Structures are given as C-alpha cells and as structure tokens.
C-alpha cells in the first residue's frame, strides 16, 4: 500500500520506533520566540546542557514588540525584559537571533518561509501553535509546549506519537471576493473547532492547487483552529518557484538535488487516510465569525444560527458566546457597527495580503469613526510594501502601515482592543479576551476587513467589488 505525504515525511525522520513508546522524531528546524523559550533555556541551565544543534535553531522577537517606534526601547517593562532575555539566551547558547532592528525580524511564521528556511519535506517545530503555517510547503510543522522546546534544544528530537491522517479536498472555483481565508473559515465552520483533533490534515483539490503560497499558508495556518496537529499541502511548481533564490534556500547542485527529492513528496494514489472530507469551492461565501471560537463562522450573507439549532448539551456554551459578543439569535451581521479593524498576524500579513488591501482601498476613504491597524508580518514585508508604494496608497485612503509583530492578534503589546468594542480582524482566534479583556473579535479575510474599514460596518465585500472590472 502507498503512503500519505505525512507518512512519507514522518517515516523519513524517525530515529527510533519502539513498541509501546512514542517515536523519537528528528526535527530539522526549530524556530523560537521570546514568550515560550525562557523557561526552556532555564531548563538547559539546570541540566547543564548546551543547545544540541544551534545552527538548526532560529530566533526572532515578535509577540511582545511595539508596532510604532520600534527603534525606541520597549516601554512596557515586562515585555522589554522578555525580549532582552531572548537576546541574552540566544547569545549565551549560540543561536541566531533576528531581533528588533534586524532586517529579517518579523512574526516567526512569516520569516521562516520568506527566508527560505521553510522547505518541503522538513520537520519543523516552534513553541507556538500556528507553526502549522509552514505545512503550506509540504513540511511537517507543528506547535509544541515549552517542555518540548527544551527537549528539542537538548536533543534536536521530540517524542511523538505518529498522527492520524485526514484529507480535505476542495475542488472547483472560488467566487470573486472569496479567498484562502474564507476557505479555511468555511472548513472550520463545518468541522467545528475540535473536528481535526488528533489528525494531520492534508489539503488537496483544485481550489487549493490554484492558491498562491501566501494563500496556502493562510489555510495551513488555521488548521490548528479545527484542532488538527497541523496541516500541509503537497509541494508543486508554485512551491518551488516561491522557494527558489530565497536567502537560505538550497542553491546550485543542492537545489537540483532537493528538487528531485521534493518531487517525490505527495500522497500515493493508493494511500489510505483515516478520514476524508470534500467541499465545493462554489459553496464558499466571504466568511465571518460571530462567536468565541473559530468554528463559529457563517457566510457573510447568512444569519447567526439559532440556539435551538444547536445540540442541547451545547446550548449553554453557545448562549454564553452570543452573550459575550452582544449578538442575538438568528440575526444578520451585515450593517453592524465596527469600531476597530486589524489587518495583520501570521494568518494574513504577507505582501500579497497588503497588495490586496491596497488595491481595494485605492481611491476610497476610511470611515472616520473606525480605528484601523495594518501591521506587516515582517521587516521584509514592510520594505517590500514601501518599495511598491503600498504605504502611500494606504495613507491616501486614511490608513497607516505600522511596524511588524503579532500586535493585536493577541494583544501582548499595547495594541489592545478596548472592552466591548467590535474588531473585524484578519487574525486567527476570536476567543474571549484574545485581543484585550472583553474585546469582541470577528474573524474575516483581508478584503472583508478592508471593506469594514471603508464603510464602518460589516459589509459584504462582493457588493463593493461589483462595479469594478474583473481582472
């Protein structure tokens, strides 16, 4: 019997498989950031161990950093201490750091791919659940806890049970105004936030193949929001074209050698998945969430489902969520007031996202009452946006381009949404308080977020696209 893509990559990294024990899985690349690494470095000190393979470890500062005036010292004391601690730890243990001020600094899941560190067939981990993003290249990439960060520091390996595999196939063509973010929010709304638990998900089908690398990253990024351990997409010409020539990508002979290997990375025809789901791209509308987990999403033209339509045991949690959001049963979201718009995070802060937003807002004006934060994913994205004049287009429409970091995705820096306010956000989590205590988050695509920024209301972006020529 053939193998799935996950099995191929997994098996190629098993150092030891022993009955009754999890596999010892070799990790090619370990990404770290300031929040989930300090206790792991401390653990090494206590055990008197070095980082086993420092040159397979890359660090950046992203979660705590300000997105305005990054050249000044961080004002908030604890944030500053954590970022300083990362500098101290990485220099003590000989790990490369792309910290504040470095031209490669940015959100860890944005810089890996753009630097050519993320490659097909790799195993990659990071103390961060959205490590699943890197799966877009046909890598096995997943988030780990701090004890496991310490394990990888100490051994470059992890003890892991081989996962179950699920294939999610999406065929057909997307409607105009519908993109990668809508695909993944749609899938999660169908599977629920726990539907992928225990699985590694391979995304396939013509609608996935048609996506750019940026779009594929958006999809894999949010695979964790259906509970999956990770998501991935078999590499193809789109992948190879994206990787070629990037800073740390293989070159010359190594490139040819790698390419030959990468072309073997697909699920065999006769491979068996533990579960298979299929969806039709034509059924997908621009999506928006109305509740407090990413599975609570609807097509923007639909109404919020009634509490009665939920399984009885789930009704109290459902009611609690609607209550938190200040929404009623069965109502429509269209036309509701929006206070904040956040365009950023490792889900949607890449150059393609900014291009799409700039393209859309060109010639329009931001609604005066809405506060908008547009945060690029990395220094390189920021530089590219400036080189393309995107910052000027945004400015003319009343927006500003901030500096890179996680920002309002989790509000660890000062970019917090105030209590009770509504924020249409391109990030990945709408949990209670995620963007600040009692903040209300509505997850959506960059286009839907930009439409809200222009009208000041929840808007079906397709109506604003209607008059424009189809390109």
């Amino acid at each position, binding site marked *: 019997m053939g193998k799935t893509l996950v099995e191929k990559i997994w098996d190629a990294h098993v150092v030891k498989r022993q009955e009754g024990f999890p596999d010892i899985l070799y990790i090619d690349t370990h990404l770290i950031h300031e929040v*989930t690494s300090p206790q792991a470095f401390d653990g090494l000190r206590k055990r008197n161990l070095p980082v086993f393979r420092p040159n397979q470890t890359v660090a950046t500062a992203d979660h705590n950093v300000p997105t305005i005036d990054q050249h000044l010292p961080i004002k908030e004391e604890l944030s500053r201490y954590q970022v300083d601690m990362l500098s101290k730890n990485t220099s003590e243990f000989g790990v490369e750091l792309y910290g504040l001020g470095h031209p490669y600094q940015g959100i860890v899941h944005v810089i890996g791919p753009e630097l050519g*560190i993320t490659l097909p067939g790799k195993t990659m981990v990071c103390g961060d659940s959205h490590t699943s993003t890197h799966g877009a290249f046909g890598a096995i990439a997943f*988030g780990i806890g*701090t004890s496991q960060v310490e*394990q990888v520091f100490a051994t470059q390996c992890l003890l892991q049970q081989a996962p179950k595999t699920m294939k999610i196939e999406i065929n057909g063509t997307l409607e105009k105004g519908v993109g990668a973010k809508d695909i993944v929010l749609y899938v999660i709304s169908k599977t629920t936030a726990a539907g992928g638990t225990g699985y590694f998900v391979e995304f396939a089908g013509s609608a996935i193949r048609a996506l750019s690398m940026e779009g594929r990253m958006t999809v894999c990024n949010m695979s964790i929001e259906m509970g999956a351990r990770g998501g991935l997409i078999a590499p193809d010409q789109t992948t190879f074209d994206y990787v070629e020539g990037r800073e740390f990508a293989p070159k010359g002979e190594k490139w040819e050698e790698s390419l030959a290997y990468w072309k073997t990375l697909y699920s065999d025809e006769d491979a068996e998945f533990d579960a298979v789901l299929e969806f039709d791209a034509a059924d997908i509308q621009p999506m928006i969430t109305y509740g407090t987990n990413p599975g609570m999403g609807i097509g923007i033209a639909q109404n919020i489902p009634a509490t009665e339509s939920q399984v009885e045991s789930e009704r109290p949690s459902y009611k609690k969520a609607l209550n938190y959001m200040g929404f009623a049963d069965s109502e429509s979201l269209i036309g509701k007031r929006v206070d904040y718009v956040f365009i950023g995070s490792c889900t949607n802060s890449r150059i393609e996202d900014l291009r799409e937003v700039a393209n859309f807002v060109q010639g329009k004006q931001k609604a005066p009452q809405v506060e908008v934060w547009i945060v690029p994913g990395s220094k390189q994205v920021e530089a590219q946006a400036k080189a393309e004049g995107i910052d000027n287009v945004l400015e003319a429409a009343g927006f500003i381009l901030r500096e890179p970091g996680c920002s309002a995705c989790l509000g660890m820096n000062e970019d917090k949404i105030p209590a009770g306010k509504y924020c249409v956000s391109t990030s990945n989590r709408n949990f209670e*308080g995620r963007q600040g205590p009692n903040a209300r988050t509505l997850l959506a695509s960059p286009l839907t977020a930009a439409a809200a920024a222009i009208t000041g209301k929840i808007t079906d972006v397709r109506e604003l696209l209607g008059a424009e020529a189809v390109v």
Partner: protein
Amino acid sequence: MKKFETLNSSVVPLPIENIDTDQIIPARFLKATTRDGFGDNLFRDWRFDGDNQPKPDFVMNDATYAGKILVAGKNFGCGSSREHAAWAIQDYGFDVVISSFFADIFKGNALNNGVLPIQVTEEFLEKIFASTFKNPESKLVVDLEAQTVTIQDTNESFTFEINPYKKSCLINGYDDIDYILSHRAEIEEFEKTRPYSYV
C-alpha cells in the same frame, strides 16, 4: 517532575465546552520568564472583574467547591500552545483534569508537567457533574496504576486510556529528555543520512 500517586479528592466543576488556553491563562500574563506563580492568574478574566475583585458567581470563588481535580466540558485546552496553561493549573493545585475531550497540545503539556488529563465519555462526565452538584463533597478516586476513576458516592468506575510510556513517566517522575538523551548515539547516526543534512 514529582511522582503521581493515587488521588482521592473532591472536584471543582466547570461545565463549559471549548475552554481555550486564552481563558486558562490570558496572554497578558505570559510575560514571566520563570514557571512560578501562574496559579494566581488561572482563569483570570472569569475569576476577577476589571477592578480585580472576585466574581462571586465563578466556581473557583465559591467555597462550596474545592479539590485537586478540575472537571470541565469537552474540547478542554484548545487554542494556543502555551504551556503556561498547564503551569497555571498545576500551580493552582490541580493534579488531574477530567473532560470528555482534550486538545492535543494541552494534553501533552499537562503530561509533561505531572498533571494527569483523563478523558472520559460524555455520560461519565455527566455523572461526575451530577454527583458533584448533588453533593459538593463527593469524592473521586483516581488510580493511575489501574487506570480508573471512581465516583466514591455511587461506586461507579471508568477505565481511562493513557500511553504506557507516559504512564510510567508519571508514576516514576521521569521526563522525556532523560529518555531521548539515552539514545544520543542513534540520533547522531541518523543525522548522517537525513535529507536535510546541508541546512
């Protein structure tokens, strides 16, 4: 890691589904660089209001319920991979979390910190809630060796699953690093043949 012993305790019931790690420990408390003191902020925004006053209707502020076992609705620990969630639960004094479903990363993080996540059926979960709400002093007995959890009042018992390796780690207080390091020669051997030896 401390050794896990048989536990006999009353429970703190939290019949809410999809409790994510942002609720267990909100992001603004992740700025610490040590593992200590997270228990104070466990379920911070459910436990305290904006003026840091305890919210009386939250179960952890209700003296009726106490114990070393947290019992919660399904899909517990979803969301962020932050191990701080497991640290907060442990630091507050819970040794066991029971739910009808756990998110993967949380389950691993709990086990790596000596907190035992026990997955039971929906029906058994309902029974635990029912017996606790009827009699808050009702106790559960968790026997890791036998892999059972028993409601003392009714003597109903459930046999749970746990990976045998993880079970022995908990019982003996070992951790994964000790185990992997004992295979160091094999790791170095593996590195000579792996596809990405050049990066």
